[in-house]
């Protein structure tokens, strides 16, 4: 007897949202597995925020369905709200409250018993690194601290799915790195996280799966490496030889598995043919030809490059 596949954390089918004649989201089919740290990528106006708002029950879809841990976001909105934590792209904080007051307030709204609430507040503050700021007025906190507080609010009722809309926008580099560390820690704790961000280099390092949308339509959804493979027309390898660079270039050009060779400063840029994935071929050709190879490195295509290639830069 085999185990049933685990329930996806999020599953959308044909999810659409129109604002009058304007289509913000068109037939989005998406699956996010439990435990994923899922990156949501798209240019401004692509439909990321609309999707997250539908998933968080803030908006109702014009067509299609979204299921979160088995609950429909429209018909079972109350049940969905208990398993999600949504952090919007604005802070959503009461600036005239103290940090603990704020979290205690939301804890009370979630009907967490008073006895348990104090410990919960303390725990989430520690998790997001705000224990030192317990008594501070929220309005006096820096932007980064307020973002962390927003994250703490999201965690107060221990949701299984976190929907984070641009959680690192406007943060300084240190705060961004710290925020990403917190997200990794939350993933380790078993949370499923959907995060939309413009800082693709950071999504690349923390997300195990990403989706790219443009003009409300899904372009790609899957592992980060998958999208790289899909868009790369040929691997690029950089080689450096000790002497006689021209001879090395001639050697490489003769090989049919190499698509293009060119000299850039003191390095040789080698583009492999599409079917060739093993870059050791370059070393093999050079060594056999008698060139003295001193460095060989693969030019890995980044998520930003992938994003630029798969999207047309069209906004709505």
């Amino acid at each position, binding site marked *: 007897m085999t185990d049933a596949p685990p329930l996806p954390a999020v599953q959308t089918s044909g999810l659409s949202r129109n604002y009058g004649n304007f289509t913000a989201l068109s037939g989005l089919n998406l699956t996010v597995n439990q435990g994923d740290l899922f990156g949501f990528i798209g240019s401004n106006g692509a439909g990321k925020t609309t999707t997250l708002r539908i998933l968080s029950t803030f908006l109702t879809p014009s067509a299609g369905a979204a299921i979160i841990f088995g609950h429909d976001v429209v018909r079972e909105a109350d049940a969905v709200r208990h398993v999600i934590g949504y952090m919007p792209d604005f802070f959503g904080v*009461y600036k005239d409250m103290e940090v603990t007051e704020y979290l205690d307030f939301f804890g009370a709204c979630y009907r967490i018993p008073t006895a348990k609430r104090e410990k919960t507040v303390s725990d989430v503050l520690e998790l997001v690194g705000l224990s030192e700021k317990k008594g501070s007025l929220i309005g006096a906190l820096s932007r980064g601290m307020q973002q962390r507080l927003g994250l703490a609010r999201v965690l107060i009722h221990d949701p299984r799915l976190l929907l984070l809309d641009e959680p690192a926008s406007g943060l300084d580099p240190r705060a961004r790195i710290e925020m990403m560390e917190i997200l990794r820690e939350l993933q380790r704790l078993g949370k499923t996280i959907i995060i939309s961000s413009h800082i693709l280099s950071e999504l690349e390092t923390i997300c195990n799966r990403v989706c790219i949308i443009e003009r409300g339509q899904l372009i790609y959804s899957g592992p980060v490496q998958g999208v790289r493979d899909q868009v790369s027309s040929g691997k690029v390898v950089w080689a450096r030889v000790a002497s006689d660079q021209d001879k090395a270039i001639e050697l490489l050009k003769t090989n049919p598995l190499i698509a293009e060779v060119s000299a850039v400063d003191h390095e040789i840029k080698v583009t492999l043919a599409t079917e060739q994935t093993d870059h050791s071929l370059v070393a093999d050709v050079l060594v056999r030809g008698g060139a003295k190879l001193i460095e060989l490195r693969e030019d890995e295509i980044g998520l930003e490059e992938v994003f630029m290639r798969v999207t047309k830069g069209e906004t709505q």
Partner: protein
Amino acid sequence: MTFLPIVKRELAVLAARAGARWVRIGLIGVAIFFCLQFFALRTGMSPTSAGAAAFHTLAGMAFLLACGATFVTADCVSYERRDGTLGLLFLTDLKGHDVVLGKLVAAGLNAFYALLGMAPVLMLPLLAGGVTGLQVFWTALALLNLLLIALAVGMVATVRATTRARAWRDAALLFVFVLAWPWLPNLAWESDLSSALKSLSPLYVIVNKFDMMPALKLKSIWISFALVHAEAWLLLLLAAFLLQRGWRDSFNLRRVKSGHEARRERHAHAATPPTQRPAHVFRPIAPVAYSFLRLRSQGALAWGAAVISFLGSFGSAAGVMGLGMPSLYFGVPAILHFGSSGLFAWVAGRFLFEARRSGELELLLSTPVGARGIVRDQWFALMRVLRGPLILVVIGALPHAARVIAMGAGTEMIGLLGALLTMANAVLGVFAMTWFGMWLGARVKRPIAIVGWAVGLVDVSAIVISYVVVFVIANLASPRGFTYPMLLWSVALPFLFTLKNVGFIWWSHQQLCREFRTPGVLRWTNWPASWTGADSGGVNT
């Protein structure tokens, strides 16, 4: 029901605000002041008459206070919508009725405490006589009922509104409608049904509470009381329903537009192109004046202030001339006057306050318009907004001027001079309030501070000082020598008020220029040639 966290939050936030305490203290102070004047000053009334007059004055004040409570709740949900926190509340276990009830209890408690603070003062007339315990009881009950329905009306307005201005406008209109509509059928045709409809208005109990109340009337008042109470709860149910159904609207990107977008859309659909609108005339020559005039409802606010001022002046004149409306003697006209002054101060200070908050001021200061241009253009634009309302203010001052002339029988020249000064003070008072408001707009952190400080320092302090002087003269002068100092004081008072107004204008102007580190702008020679007709324009430097 999970409304208690909201009550706790709102009360905690309010407790941290010193302003709320000062407002309450101020209200009670004003109540004590108006009450004591009937007993402390030698007004020629018997203690019983003084008690009745004081009670009616205080009841009038409390009535205005209860009516004003509609503005307490009018922005309590819409500000959450603007800040984006409303949706976060609905992500929790809270429902529409929790939010409405929580906000109502918190706002209601504050308004109730303000009314409660007046209770001991209301007891003084009871002790003095001239008013019965039953009258006090009915007044208190009617005011509480009025308070509840005012709060409920504000709640209905706030659950649909996005901006504060719209919330306040809707609340005011709806409240007037709730007060007035049951009386309208009776105006068209008198019948048992139309008379019965009147009992649906909160005013019904207020109007009838002073009567002798035979048993039949008492029954109808009880019925009216119950109906109005039920009406308030129905309004609250409506608010909860609308909120539960419409809280997502703030996330519907296409339905909620920013003020700028909405204005642009209105211009696009308007018959007159935006470049031909009055405010746009100033865009090339006085950009700050243009920005000032672009602020929404500036003209309406200025006219509102003038109308309130006119009503206050009329009420005061009617009270003094003995038209049988005792509450018009001092309290209500004074409250109306303060309200009018507060609005004028807000109209004047609003531009600098909002420009400072949005960062527009820093941008303007860095342009060739400069600090002097900002102050000068703003004053110019303000004059444009105020010129019509000022005429109404002057008309409102006419009965007082006439009374001053009448008082000066035998000394016509002094009477005439006093009348002229009364008229001048009506205008200078508005100027003083606006200059002071402008300076406050450049300084304070909260809008209410502009109104509070301006009214408190320019108006209330002057009136308090003048009453203290009268009190001293009335109580320290010997009975035989009482008339002469009082006459001297009444002659000197308009001069002193003129000095006060001019002093505030000059001082505020100096402070404002110092604030922006710019030389004075109240000199004609500093005005741009385009305004004086000598040049075709250009940006002020």
